């Protein structure tokens, strides 16, 4: 009889996850990861069984985006791991902290093309912040703690830990948790004081400054600091798609989103600005259009926790490496010190110009009560019914742009979407993850029919696990954004963008998956259907919203085109 303190590698894994405070793992078991699923039954960790590994990955992302905590996904080797590649790349592009645990074939079988073998760490090399292949059960605990540290600090991102089956089964001992020390990883969080002062000098001298805010402010939990700084600076604020909610849209300084489908005012403000004060944004091509003609008059201050983002697309006159919240605090202090008892620059002319554009070129749409429903109208009605008090989760495409344009965001982490990778099918599983993280909040996925058909089976997960999300499926019987581009740039030749004559009966499909299924076909039905959906809290609800298939998203800046040319409608083309 043994009385020693040895446990299996799999048990050590559970201990490490518990020490990291993990409350839920999203996953799907299979041969190689089976040893880890057994002690999971005894751990203080809930497991949510996804129907597809991609779904599990997006759930972990939704969880992480809704809270800022590290999301965890666990899948098996081979196809389990390859199905996870899309969420990993998605998390990398959007800087979402997740830890992926993958089973691997036994060590002796690695490299033999064994059943369900894939070179997971190789596949994950470019879609993770870092990855590990664990070869010794003693390393499991320390590596899991490293993985959480890497995922959650600095610029957050996905980290993968690949665990061969024999390593999970091997005996090991768990000692006290050790602090993580990584020689090659020391993110700078505090901005250089001289650069901070230089940034303030530029700001105070600027006549047409814009605070250009990215997702980094949300990751850094810096919204309150941003508000204080923007008000003190008396500068307008443009938010990227990833930063919707970082600054309240109702604030007088808020200009909304710029870029390909941003508002005329936000896009043109950057074009005319003399100081582009970037805090936590990476100058994505959807923001800049052609970088050579982007914000041609502006000097640039660029605050980013990732030094590689500074100067990658746009040279910065004042680069500041640091955590957005920390640097915003430094900036405010430096601003107050610089200014003393002086007033903030009034910039009346600049604000008058901006107000003029807002009046002349508002974001707008018309809903004819007799015509098909417009997505924008549904968004407005939902905003009204909820008072905006919801976590909104987007798919990818036209509806995503309309949500960003028309939802008036007031809180950080109230907008969850796939920004960088543009992953269709993200909304339903991400909403499940978000609802797991924030069970008391209303989590409403706004999805397109094309997206919905990619991952809707996760509604079975939501119904089975008792995760009552709400989903609106905007049914335009096709891939709307593809159709929009074909209409504008391919002479209306609609190649493979029609979803065909056999559309599912979405309410019936939802009912068959254990959800409540509803449908709205006319504008007058939208309000009552939303009320009905909001009254149901014991099951997931799916509303099919039959929408106008011909509606297009404007304004629009052409891909790779100049932000000088904001198309307000098809007639501008």
């Amino acid at each position, binding site marked *: 009889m043994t009385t020693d303190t040895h446990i299996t590698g799999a048990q050590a894994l559970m201990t490490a996850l518990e020490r990291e405070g993990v409350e839920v793992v999203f996953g799907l078991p299979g041969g190689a990861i089976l040893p880890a699923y057994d002690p999971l039954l005894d751990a203080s960790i809930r497991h949510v069984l996804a129907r597809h590994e991609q779904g599990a990955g997006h759930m972990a992302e939704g969880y992480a985006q809704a809270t800022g905590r590290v999301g965890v996904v666990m899948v098996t080797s081979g196809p389990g791991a390859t199905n996870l590649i899309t969420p990993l790349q998605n998390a990398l592009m959007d800087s979402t902290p997740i830890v992926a645990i993958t089973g691997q074939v036994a060590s002796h079988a690695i490299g033999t093309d064994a059943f369900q073998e894939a070179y997971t760490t190789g596949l994950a090399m470019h879609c993770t912040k*870092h990855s590990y292949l664990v070869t010794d059960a003693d390393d499991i605990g320390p590596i899991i703690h490293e993985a959480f540290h890497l995922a959650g600090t600095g610029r957050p991102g996905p980290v993968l830990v690949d665990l061969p089956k024999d390593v999970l089964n091997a005996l090991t001992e768990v000692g006290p948790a050790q602090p993580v020390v990584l020689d090659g990883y020391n993110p700078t969080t505090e901005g250089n004081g001289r650069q901070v002062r230089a940034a303030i000098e530029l700001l105070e001298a600027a006549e047409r400054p814009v605070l250009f805010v990215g997702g980094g402010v949300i990751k850094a939990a810096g919204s309150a600091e941003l508000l204080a700084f923007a008000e003190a600076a008396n500068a307008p604020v443009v938010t990227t798609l990833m930063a919707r909610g970082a600054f309240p849209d109702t604030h007088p300084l808020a200009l909304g989103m710029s870029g390909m489908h941003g508002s005329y005012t936000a896009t043109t403000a950057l074009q005319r600005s003399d100081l582009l004060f970037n805090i936590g944004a990476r100058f994505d091509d959807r923001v800049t259009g052609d970088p050579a003609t982007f914000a041609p008059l502006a000097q640039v201050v660029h605050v980013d926790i990732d030094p590689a983002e500074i100067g990658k697309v746009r040279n910065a006159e004042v680069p500041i490496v640091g955590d957005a919240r920390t640097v915003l605090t430094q900036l405010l202090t430096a601003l107050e010190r610089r200014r003393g008892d002086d007033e903030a620059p009034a910039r009346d002319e600049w604000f008058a110009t901006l107000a003029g554009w807002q009046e002349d070129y508002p974001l707008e749409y018309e809903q004819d009560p007799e015509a098909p429903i417009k997505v924008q109208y549904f968004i407005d009605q939902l905003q009204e019914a909820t008072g905006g008090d919801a976590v909104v989760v987007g798919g990818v495409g036209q509806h995503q742009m309309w949500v960003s344009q028309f939802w008036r965001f007031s809180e950080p982490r109230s907008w969850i979407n796939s920004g960088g990778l543009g992953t269709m099918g993200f909304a339903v599983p991400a909403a499940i993850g978000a609802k797991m993280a924030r069970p008391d909040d209303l989590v409403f996925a706004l999805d397109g029919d094309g997206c919905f058909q990619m991952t809707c089976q996760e509604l079975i997960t939501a119904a089975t696990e008792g995760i009552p999300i709400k989903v609106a499926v905007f049914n335009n019987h096709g891939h709307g954004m593809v159709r929009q581009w074909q209409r504008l740039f391919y002479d209306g030749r609609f190649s493979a963008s029609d979803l065909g004559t056999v559309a599912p009966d979405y309410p019936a499909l939802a009912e068959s998956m254990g959800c409540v299924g509803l449908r709205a076909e006319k504008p007058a039905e939208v309000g009552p259907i939303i009320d009905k959906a909001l009254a149901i809290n014991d099951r997931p609800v799916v509303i099919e919203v039959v929408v106008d298939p011909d509606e297009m998203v404007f304004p629009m800046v052409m891909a790779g085109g100049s932000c000088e040319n904001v198309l307000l409608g098809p007639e501008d083309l």
Partner: protein
Amino acid sequence: MRHTLSVVVEDQSGVLARVASMFAQRAFNIHSLAVGPTHEEGRSRITLVVDAPDVEQLSKQLYKLVNVLKVTELTPEEALESETMLVRVTAGTDTRGTVLEAAAMLDATLLDLGPSSVTFQVAGDPATLARFLEVMQPFGIAELVKSGRVAIAKESTRAAARAAG
């Protein structure tokens, strides 16, 4: 623009793949690569000669790799550089004497005398290797194998200070 980078990494499996693959991903072109242990336990050094328009961005991308500890750019003025090559020069009975004589003057090491060719080892800075090839070209280069370039900062230079940093 060609740059020589000296990259100190943790000596762990997969590190070279991560570095090399990042270059491919970011469309930076590797001209030469040499990897080997350093004087410190658990540390390896990768010396890269690369074509990249923006070496600063390249350096930042290298630093994003968790196992990368130190990246130093070595300019030709600041660095001592060395390469090794093995060259088989065509040399029949009529030209053999001239080839051997020229090789001796260029400090090449004779490794093998074959019936129709002679094999030399040449080590030194890139200019030395280039000079040798230039001289031997008329006789005919039958085969050529080159190592990656290795480089070390001169003690007197700023790069040395940075590398020691």
